[in-house]
């Protein structure tokens, strides 16, 4: 790690501490000015010390925080959520910076976040089906459209969402044009809607449905990015429902580690996310069991079926 990177890391830590203090409401009015100055110093330091820090930031920063336009009507709860999301994104930054500092790999800072492959921007704006729900659960099927689709994931998401009154987002465009489970689709409407649901506190659990081609793997593999995306008790509860219906499950899959949807939109324990990788055989032969397991799990643990 270079000297500049170390300094940048230190400044990120300062920023993290400031955010934490604000979040815990430790700052009195007298201290506000002092913190504001510290804050400015940290930001100036970041800009100066690391020429490409903006790329690090843009890679992890929650867009909702920097794009939110109704600042005058901010509720304390939303401010709190912004701060938590930001603090969590800095934690993710630490993980990345340390990971790349300890290897000779190039950090992902040079990648761009834009969906540069907007096929037809207008077409992309309506390339998904959104099902409004009442429960605080979102089912996502990002790869449901052929070619190269994860067969039946769209149907499973729709059925479970309708049965349980959950939210669902189902892609209607093939991943050969845009892969909603990659970092460079974060600004697409599909992903911005997830952002909106997360920050308006309408969801606190994301179930991202995928499929793998392997016939040898377990029926369902649960990816949680080594525990970064979900509380463990949610996973344990989910597993009991799969096992009850005779499905084999593997937790914390290393092969299907979890994609960008759960990596970016979750900040446990407030918003949790799992990527379910359902194997080909299970999607053909045990699809009703999968639907039952998910439905029962959501009905029992997916929050009240409250009015919007």
């Amino acid at each position, binding site marked *: 790690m270079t000297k500049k990177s170390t300094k940048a890391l230190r400044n990120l830590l300062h920023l993290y501490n400031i955010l934490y203090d604000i979040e815990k409401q430790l700052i009195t009015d007298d201290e506000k000015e002092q913190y504001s100055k510290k*804050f400015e110093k940290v930001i100036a330091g970041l800009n100066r010390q690391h020429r490409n820090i903006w790329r690090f930031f843009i890679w992890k920063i929650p867009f909702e925080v920097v794009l939110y336009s109704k600042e005058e009507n901010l509720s304390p709860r939303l401010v709190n959520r912004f701060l938590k999301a930001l603090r969590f994104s800095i934690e993710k930054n630490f993980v990345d910076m340390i990971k790349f500092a300890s290897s000779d790999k190039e950090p992902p800072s040079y990648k761009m976040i834009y969906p540069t492959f907007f096929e037809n921007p207008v077409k992309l704006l309506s390339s998904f089906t959104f099902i409004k729900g009442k429960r605080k659960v979102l089912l996502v099927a990002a790869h449901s459209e052929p070619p190269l689709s994860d067969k039946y994931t769209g149907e499973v998401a729709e059925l479970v969402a309708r049965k349980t009154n959950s939210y669902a987002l189902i892609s209607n465009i093939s991943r050969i044009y845009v892969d909603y489970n990659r970092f460079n689709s974060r600004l697409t409407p599909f992903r911005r*809607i997830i952002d909106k649901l997360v920050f308006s506190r309408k969801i606190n659990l994301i179930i991202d449905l995928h499929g793998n081609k392997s016939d040898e793997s377990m029926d369902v593999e649960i990816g949680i990015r080594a525990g970064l995306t979900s509380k463990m008790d949610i996973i344990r509860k989910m597993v009991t429902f799969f096992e009850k219906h005779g499905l084999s499950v593997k937790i914390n899959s290393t092969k299907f580690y979890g994609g960008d949807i759960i990596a970016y939109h979750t900040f446990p324990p407030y918003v949790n996310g799992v990527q379910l990788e359902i194997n080909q055989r299970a999607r053909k032969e045990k699809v009703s069991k999968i639907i039952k397991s998910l439905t029962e799990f959501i009905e029992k643990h997916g929050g009240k079926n409250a009015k919007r």
Partner: protein
Amino acid sequence: MQNVNQNYEILIGVEEEVFIVNPNGFLAPFAEHVAEKLLNIIRRDKKLLEMSRHYLKGLQWEPNPSQLEYVTRPHNIQEIIKAIKFARELLAKAANSLGLYILPISVHPVESRPFPINGTHINISILREKKPISRNELVKIFNHIRNHLPELIAISANSEILNGGKSKYKSSRLAYSRVLKESKIGKIERVRYHIRPRRKREITRYGILFEKYRNKEMKIIVNETGDRLLDIVIRGPYTNILEDSDKTSKESRIEIRAIDNQINIEHLYDIIKIIAALALEALTLDNIPDEHPYLGYNREKAIENGINAKFLNENGEEIDAKESFLKMLKRLTPFLEKMRVKLNSSISRGEPEIENSTKIEIRDTNNKLTNLEKRGVIFVEIKTKEELKAYNLFGKLTKIQEGETLSGILVPHYEILLEKEDGIIKRIMGIKINHWLVADTLYIPLTNNIIIKKHRGPVRQLYNKLKNII
């Protein structure tokens, strides 16, 4: 020369990396899926399997999941042309069955920044009366081709457009690649055999071989640490390359990696023919050629300016790269005739592909926005000078009135204008760039009729937002 043609057999093998792209020409990270599809296609078609076995050694995916590489078997010049055509068509068939295309180009005009990078490696091996040639002859060919690398680079440089704009190099692949270092002149040296340093990619590693006791051995050295990832290199058991120590002398060859991918297959054929002719010419030389005094300078200029470069000849006089190339071509004509081959592309006139079929025109609707975006200053506040269209998150059209102020993230939208045929992108004509503003809940296509009121990077934007929030 009569002697040369009668006794020597030239075998050429080609390794070519290609991009897998979607129908709009953007990278599709599905090399693994294409390879799997290809296996299924070959398994069902016995004839195709036999042809694949005849022409190809194999294919493999590369570090980037949108790259795929095929490797041909060594063939004579007539057969290698068929092999390249076969390999490209085979890959295209597999890709096309998934709705994808192959793009045989060195850098992606929009998505390479500068990586991922593709290359074409041309391997040339020569047998004399079915037997491998000597170390001396190998070095002779190597040094001769190496002395002509500037001309070969100038005529094949083809990777000027990347990241949605023009780079300062005609061959950005050679300029930016981390695995295409400059080779040194080939020498035969008596070296200690059993401890050999080896440089692997960016890291120096040491490999130690425990073999039969041989105090010293005659080795061909083109790189002291036995690195094979050079612009041109000698491969095989006579070299100090660790990976080649178990190879047979029949596998001795010269590998030229300095060639950019040629989207037009005729250009690639012609470059192969020229390299083969240079190898034949080298065999007529009495001595091992010395290094061209201005090789390094000319190489650098060729990478920068391609065929428009100014080289220095052996006497230090300035000469146009094109003139230098045409002179070389004239000298090689008898060797080409002996091989019974003709140049069929514009290369015969000293015109590289970049001046013809891959000349990419860039149409940028708003330069100012592109510059901001490339600097990372992507949070902008604009004022409209006319009514603008806008779409909400669900694609519903609304209007933005003239004089309104909007803020959001600047997002470039690229459109690649291309020609495709039978699963292969045959030509890229241009790139159209326009920008969208992604606001909180709106997507707004931007026109030229806007005023940029404020612009800032993400760190400053975050600071401003937090200050307001807190």
